[in-house]
């Protein structure tokens, strides 16, 4: 991934920073210029708790270039406690089967690397089973 692009969205990717709409108070992730709920201008930053539940999931056996090393991997739609849904890989699953409704929490992990070509290792959010935080 190109450096300027990665730099531009680092807050979202490292800290799950989105927005709260100043007009209707809906929480927004990822941040947008326009609130998808009320259509008002949205600029106020809001850091999400990183807690949520699995809304749907899949286990992938074919990957796009840059992600092959993780195969097979689980990707989920995670419904955040504050409302929005995000797409994210699941991690630290161990032998635990994934289920819809399972509580998960955000962690920062390596999500891809561009190999020798550009040498960038991209870190970002993934989600793990919520009980794992007890260890």
């Amino acid at each position, binding site marked *: 991934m190109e450096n300027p692009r990665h730099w531009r969205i680092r807050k979202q990717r490292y800290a799950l920073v989105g927005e709260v709409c100043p007009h209707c108070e809906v929480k927004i992730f990822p941040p947008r210029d326009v609130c998808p709920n009320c259509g008002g201008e949205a600029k106020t930053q809001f850091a999400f708790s990183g807690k949520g539940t699995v809304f749907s999931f899949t286990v992938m056996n074919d990957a796009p*270039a840059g992600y092959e090393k993780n195969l097979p991997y689980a990707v989920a739609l995670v419904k955040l406690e504050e409302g929005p849904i995000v797409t994210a890989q699941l991690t630290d699953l161990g032998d635990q089967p994934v289920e819809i409704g399972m509580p998960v929490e955000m962690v920062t992990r390596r*999500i891809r690397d561009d190999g020798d070509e550009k040498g960038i290792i991209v870190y970002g959010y993934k989600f793990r089973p919520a009980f794992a935080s007890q260890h």
Partner: protein
Amino acid sequence: MSDVVIAGVGQIPVGEHWDVSLRSQAVRAVLAAIKDAGGLKPQAMYIGNLLAPTVSHQSNLGALLPDWSNLTGIEGITVEAAGASGGGAFRLGYLAVASGFVDTAVVVGVEKITDVVGPELERAIAESTDYDYELAQGLTLTAQAGLVMQLYLHQYKPPREAFAAFPMLAHENAVGNPFAMYRKPISQKAYDSAPMVSEPVNLMDMAPYADGAAAVVLTRRDLVPDSVSHPLVKVSGSSVASDTLALHDRSDPLAFDAARLSVEGACRQAGILPQDVDFFELTDAFSIYAVLSLEAAGFAPRGEGWKLGLDGTLRRDGKLPILTMGGFKARGNPLGAAGVYQIVEAALQLRGEAGSNQIPNARRALVQNLGGPASTAVAHVLERVNG
């Protein structure tokens, strides 16, 4: 306004054309369509394509393809709307001719996937998801379908094996289509034992990506040369709708709202209801999308679209035939060209030229082309012109 009609169609077989270039594929389809239209010379070319800039490192097909078709000088524009690029290009051709600004337009869908292989191709195709927030997490189009199907299975509890009906029907119908990629039937057993690609989507639930090119010539009815002896097909409804690009931005990912809106728009313009059509060419890029398209168009209640696959309704002799020439699953899925293949196949049915796949007395078709999980939906109503 004079009717906008399809005066000619052309296609090349869908498959892996290692020895044929992007431009040659397109030119062959264009020339075939112009010939079928009695040699009508187009003033505009609208091109449906998704991957040329990434996979073939070639942009500005709007100049390249008229040039190599010996049509240098005409208007040429590429339409990109992921898997709905072909349908989108057809829409543009329709608007151009219907507006009166263009007398005759050729619409060509072309896709060249075999210029790269493996993960590089997966990534190029996945760039039609939200790059920053979906592909960045390693998501592909197939994984999106996996997320949707998992949710469907959880919410409505259909028998998992019921989804086999869609690829089985597609393969059965492809047997009679000389332009299809896989002309062999498949069994329930083959479906049940297919390897998992993106759970719960297995290899038989997804259409294979392939090379292909298809073209149609659109013109006003009064401009069709006398030498054209085949029946004409008119465009009586045309509509495009969009939904969120990212699946996660939808409160109800099983609704396929854009699919519903495009059908409503096209049928309203044609003055019909969806049930007034003789067949429905839908997008079975994934079997779950076929099910959701049937529900979105109102042919089944939410959560019950899969049942239509079990009672014969969707077969060529049923009440609502779909995928009549093999659909995406067995004809093959040439992404940005697929929407034009659908139009060509529907036109052949309406002209009575579908060979052993002919639907008796087919007079009106609904054709729907989806990009992604119905992030873009293009719908057209086509009708055989009387006399």
